[in-house]
């Protein structure tokens, strides 16, 4: 004969109310102790969700060393903080380190050549005293944070050698060709004309002079001609050099392309192998994996760079680089390429998705919030929730029994395969209930309040009603209907029933049979009487 224990609704704080826990008294000692312990935890100053470690001096010293480094000095404060956080320092330790390293006055930085390169973009942000996180940190280029940066740096550097070599050779070839062309085009003709002029002049001179020196003139002419011929030869030779250089360049370029292709193939093969090892079975890898490794970068340094490239979305929808990149679908790469080019995919529609009425009142809830399975262990809503969820499964199990054994085999709907599981659950939960034997059922939850109202414990024992529930054919179907399709039509009915039954129960079960039958009519209320059954 459980009496009705009036539990005041808890004050709207975050803590779970401890009063009902001790009031009800039914839950096992363990539960109440847990609740009390948690309550104490929450009540006492340091909650469990706070660092309780003392500051680690060695970490602070490391942080101070890091912050004193000239390169770090030039980076935005946000990045410095983020780096230290990633290294596992607590807020206090980071604050202490910042306190120990005085901020340099902004004008002194020019003495450090290392910062010069970064200064362009970062002085503005470092000048501003750091009220921790500000949006201005975002658009800055490569981060000063060592982790990903160094990795990316080494990667970049190693690649750099490769491309650097290529560039150097290319430059040499081009400059050689350029000078040859220049020589050929500008200097040689001039030389030729000059020689011709000289020859002409010489001839004229000869003409003016007596023919006493024809041999000389002839010799001079011959010499000039040979010189011209030599110059012509030189020009031809240089032309050939230019041509050969061009050819070499071409060959070199082709070689590079071939090498690239080979590298790509090797990469794709390695990803293929890795994929096979990882036991996945998807074919689209060849070009997509390569493209991914080129285009998608993870660490936020590069993510931001990508963002700057494209005004749209950065690739921070998490794509990985260091751990092998997940091969993106081919169409994904196509769309990325399109967006990078600035084109808009053609399937986008113009949609007006603004609220038609910004002050639209939200519809009232039709159902009471259902207690969660993990709240079962709490004293307040213990078996009530079990029962409430149990009855829903009861409904299904009974239906299952009604339909016979065949429901499992056919391929239709979801109902059969839900029930399979649920049968087991009800058994287990029955056991649990018997053990705890507690009571507490959520009856009504008054809609919309800031704090959560614990359920009222059920008062009265009504074995007859409980027995009546044991043959729940009709209410199950009704309940099925109600919750699935007809809620629009019958919301008020259920709440009315709830209220009515609650009142009945509270008043000590005057109308025994009535209570039972009204319970039968709305499935959600079955729990109450079942509950009371156990109470007795």
């Amino acid at each position, binding site marked *: 004969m459980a009496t009705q224990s009036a539990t005041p609704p808890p004050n709207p704080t975050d803590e779970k109310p401890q009063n009902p826990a001790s009031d009800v008294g039914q839950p096992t000692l363990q539960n109440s102790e847990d609740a009390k312990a948690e309550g104490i935890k929450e009540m006492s100053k340091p909650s469990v969700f706070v660092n309780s470690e003392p500051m680690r001096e060695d970490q602070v010293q490391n942080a101070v060393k890091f912050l004193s480094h000239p390169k770090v000095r030039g980076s935005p404060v946000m990045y410095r903080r983020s780096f230290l*956080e990633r290294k596992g320092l607590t807020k206090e330790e980071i604050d202490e380190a910042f306190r120990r390293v005085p901020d340099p006055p902004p004008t002194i930085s020019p003495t450090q050549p290392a910062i010069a390169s970064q200064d362009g973009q970062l002085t503005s942000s470092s000048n501003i005293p750091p009220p921790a*996180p500000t949006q201005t940190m975002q658009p800055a280029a490569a981060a000063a944070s060592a982790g990903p940066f160094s990795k990316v740096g080494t990667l970049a550097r190693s690649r750099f050698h490769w491309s650097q070599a290529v560039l150097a050779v290319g430059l040499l070839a081009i400059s050689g060709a350029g000078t040859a062309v220049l020589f050929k085009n500008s200097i040689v003709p001039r030389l030729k004309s000059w020689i011709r002029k000289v020859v002409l002049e010489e001839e004229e001179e000869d003409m003016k002079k007596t023919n006493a020196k024809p041999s000389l003139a002839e010799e001079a002419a011959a010499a000039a001609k040979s010189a011209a011929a030599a110059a012509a030869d030189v020009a031809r030779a240089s032309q050939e050099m230019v041509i050969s250089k061009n050819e070499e360049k071409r060959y070199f370029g082709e070689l590079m392309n071939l090498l690239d292709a080979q590298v790509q193939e090797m990469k794709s093969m390695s990803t293929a192998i890795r994929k096979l090892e990882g036991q996945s079975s998807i074919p689209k890898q060849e070009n997509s994996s390569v493209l991914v490794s080129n285009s998608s970068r993870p660490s936020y340094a590069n993510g931001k760079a990508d963002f700057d490239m494209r005004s749209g979305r950065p690739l921070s929808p998490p794509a990985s680089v260091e*751990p092998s990149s997940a091969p993106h679908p081919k169409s994904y790469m196509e769309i990325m390429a399109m967006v990078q080019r600035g084109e808009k995919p053609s399937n986008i529609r113009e949609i007006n998705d*603004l*609220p038609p009425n*910004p002050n639209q009142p*939200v519809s009232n809830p039709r159902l009471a919030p259902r207690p969660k399975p993990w709240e079962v262990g709490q004293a307040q809503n213990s078996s009530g929730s079990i029962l409430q969820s149990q009855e829903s499964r009861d409904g299904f199990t009974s239906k299952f029994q009604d339909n016979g054994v065949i429901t499992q085999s056919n391929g239709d709907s979801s109902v059969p395969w839900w029930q399979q599981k649920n049968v087991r659950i009800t058994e287990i939960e029955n056991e649990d209930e018997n053990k705890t034997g507690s009571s507490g059922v959520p009856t009504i939850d008054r809609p919309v309040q*800031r704090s*959560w109202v614990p359920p009222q414990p059920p008062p009265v024992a009504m074995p007859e009603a409980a027995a009546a529930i044991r043959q729940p054919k009709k209410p199950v179907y009704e309940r099925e209907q109600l919750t699935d399709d007809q809620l629009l039509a019958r919301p008020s009915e259920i709440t009315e029933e709830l209220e009515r039954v609650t009142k009945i129960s509270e008043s000590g079960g005057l109308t025994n049979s009535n209570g039972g039958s009204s319970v039968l009519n709305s499935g959600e209320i079955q729990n109450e009487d079942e509950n009371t059954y156990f109470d007795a």
Partner: protein
Amino acid sequence: MPVFKTPFNGYAVQFSPFYERRLAVATAQNFGILGNGRLHILDLSPSPASPLAELASYDTADGVYDLSWSESRDSLLAAAVADGSVRLYDAALPPSANPVRSLLEHSREAHSVDHNPLRRDSFLSSSWDDSIKLWTADRPASLRTFREHAYCVYSAVWSPRHADIFASASGDCTARVWDVREPGSTMIIAGHDFEILSCDWNKYDDCILATASVDKSIKVWDVRNYRVPVAVMNGHSYAVRKVKFSPHRGSLIASCSYDMTVCLWDYMVEDALVGRYDHHTEFAVGVDMSVLVEGLLASTGWDELVYVWQHGTDPRAP
């Protein structure tokens, strides 16, 4: 097993906390890069013809990255949209009256929303603008903004047992524990060397938190001793996109990954991998375990399919 084909690439799925048969799916066109979005509300109907029927769908101009059913109103849900707004939809109202609210404060894409199971009218949104905002459904402006992360915040999740505590996962490779009563985060868990994409609380042990990262691992942490993980679960071959603790079994975790599988883990057990489902043919991006029906799982991915199945069965079975 019921399958639903969405027109756009799936991003998130969640069962309704009120109706066993109801779930919602958030989708975005063109893999969420650039395009429209759509929010579907689906019902598991008993009729064999259409095992997963669409009750309603709402179009958005930008992709929808995440959704969260309200804990106080059975027909209300919040959607995190790629234009930075959080929109509220009421399934009980006709589609022409939806959305009922559009809360635009984030300056970058909103990546996740989560309702508070204890303070049922409040919810969090996290965004690529590095901030987390606290809202209630009845107010047009956010109540609080939490700005500490140095990069995109991919997920913010309320603790199921403490109404003021929540955790966040960010691309700055840290996960943080926050208390709304405090001005800033109370704990920084620097547990991964790569971006942390998702986090979730253990429903049965209020000090246990799981994080999933681009480094393909899932780590389980105890906030009382947060420097060393309680468990490290490797097994995915690519980044783990989402992690969810089971509402029914304290040590069971569901995860979905870019390796196109949905895996179930028991972190208390030596060999943690309990189940693996490889029904998706593209990145598996969203997964959820039903609070009302034990063992019921749903997942969605970039292959534009939504699967609902019972743990232990084959999701692709007809």
